[in-house]
């Protein structure tokens, strides 16, 4: 006759629970510390600029501090409570959660975020008709000297008054990265910037065409350029567009903060 083996108790065995507690506490501290480090790293290296709009950075920075404080408290905390692990609500077992959090934090510590580049711009559909303008009328300062306008200022201005001829002859000085739109002739490239409203998830590109004397192959995609010149109207791909006729084209390093707002 076989005897039914008694079922194991569902709860963690109390024996050695101190060691178990210490172990799981250590894991918690590690998870909190790792994420705090991730946020501190973005903060200190300035890579947060690639991920968030500056208006929201204080939130991430605050979270870095709070997580560090929590890790500290957790570390010095003594075992005061018999923790009820059996009935806790989890979609994932706690150990799995800790592991996922820790693993992603490690990836975040190793991987350096990259600013979006031309391929992302093409994938996201670049446009010179920026639609952001309407709700930020305070940005339209008509008196702005035309050479002080950034790419996005130009696009905003164009959105209000789209006739390219109206801007002919105005001097321009903008910086951005190079895109080679597929359907444009060899003599034109697009100088582009990503616009951020809150975080990199909603970054979208805007750009202005640049007329070149040489083939655009001289400027590889993703090169950062500062362009000085005059505005002209050109017909590119069957569309009349406001175009920069450069007098000076200079390669510059990627700025610390590659986005515009």
């Amino acid at each position, binding site marked *: 006759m076989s005897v039914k083996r008694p079922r194991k108790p569902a709860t963690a065995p109390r024996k050695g629970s101190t060691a178990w507690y210490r172990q799981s506490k250590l894991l918690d501290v590690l998870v909190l510390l790792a994420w705090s480090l991730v946020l501190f790293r973005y903060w200190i290296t300035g890579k947060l600029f690639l991920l968030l709009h500056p208006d929201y950075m204080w939130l991430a920075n605050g979270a870095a501090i709070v997580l560090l404080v929590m890790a500290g408290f957790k570390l010095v905390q003594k075992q005061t*409570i018999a923790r009820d692990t059996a*009935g806790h*609500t989890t*979609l994932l077992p706690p150990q799995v959660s800790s592991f996922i959090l820790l693993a992603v934090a490690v990836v*975040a510590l190793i991987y350096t975020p990259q600013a979006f580049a031309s391929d992302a711009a093409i994938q996201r559909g670049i446009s010179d008709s920026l639609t952001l303008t309407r709700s930020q009328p305070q940005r339209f300062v008509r008196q702005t000297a035309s050479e002080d306008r950034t790419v996005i200022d130009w696009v905003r201005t164009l959105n209000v008054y789209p006739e390219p001829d109206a801007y002919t002859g105005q001097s321009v000085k903008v910086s951005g990265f190079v895109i080679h739109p597929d359907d444009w002739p060899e003599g034109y490239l697009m100088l582009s910037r990503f616009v951020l409203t809150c975080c990199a998830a909603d970054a*979208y590109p805007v750009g202005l065409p640049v007329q070149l004397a040489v083939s655009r192959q001289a400027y590889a995609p993703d090169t950062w350029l500062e362009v000085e010149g005059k505005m002209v109207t050109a017909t590119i791909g069957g569309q009349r567009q406001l175009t920069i006729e450069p007098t000076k084209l200079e390669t510059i390093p990627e700025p610390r903060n590659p986005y515009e707002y």
Partner: protein
Amino acid sequence: MEKFSNGLTLFFSLLVEAIPFLLIGVAFSSLLLFFVNERTLIKFLPKSPLLGALAGSLMGVFFPVCECGNVPVARRLILQGAPSSVSIGFLLAAPTINPVVFWATWVAFRDQPEIVFLRVGFTLLIAVTIAWVFSHQRDMRPLLQPAVARQMPKLRPPSAPANPLLRSGTFLMRSDGTPLKLDDPSAQSLIASPPAQPMVVKLQLALDNMVQELKELGAVLIMGSAIAAFVQVAVPREWILALGQNFVTSILAMMLLAAVVSICSTVDSFFALSFAATFTTGAQLAFLVFGPMIDLKNIGLLLTVFKPRAIFYIFVLAAQLCFILTLFMNFYVS
């Protein structure tokens, strides 16, 4: 490779944006657990399902959390035995109807104030309706994940008087004369701790609870963000936007976008702003109303509380109501 790198950047940007709000959410939830008395809370809630739904929907005013933060609070409400109308109303409305989000939407749509008020109005209408529908399910347990259902207080018979002394269960009389229900998980952990320094101990318990919730919801958030980032990199945004020029498809496209982008409700108005000119007013409203209720990232969090069936009901109801209301907007108002 570039795509992979973009995807990772997107992924971390979503996480970095959402983690502070998740922290705020679990902090509120833990404070609610240890500093708000279940009885006090429920005593103040109206008994009628409709008023309860309204009260739950408006509770967000006191808990400024976005949709990554409201799930832990809603779960806490359910665990503390709040009626289903209250917790569902809170779940759907709190991410939108709270001071922080109102302020953010106001900042974004300063010159279209009707969007701000319609956002709040539509959200309230949808949340109250769905919460009312769910209040007919007197026992929430079949809709909840078994682990949550187990922790819920025993269902009181509908005829039970408000007097807590007449409830079933084991009680202790506290020094101030109030009873403490023993089979309540929070009470159990409170009893297990020495009563000498209640405040310190309470804070410790709150911290423990915070870490635990942060861990499990954080892991879920990571998976949701990963999916959202993947979809954004893999599906050209143009596809979604190309749908969106006429009255009907623009609404559907924006609802789809809201679900896919999974952006926090505190900042989504700035995102919607970027579609202000290309999309109909109704479509923008659809984005602002529907996004905070249901999105990819959020479904993962909801799965920690509800069974897929319940989430599906909420999803379908919210989508239909949102669609009808904003379509009405498009045809008759704007």
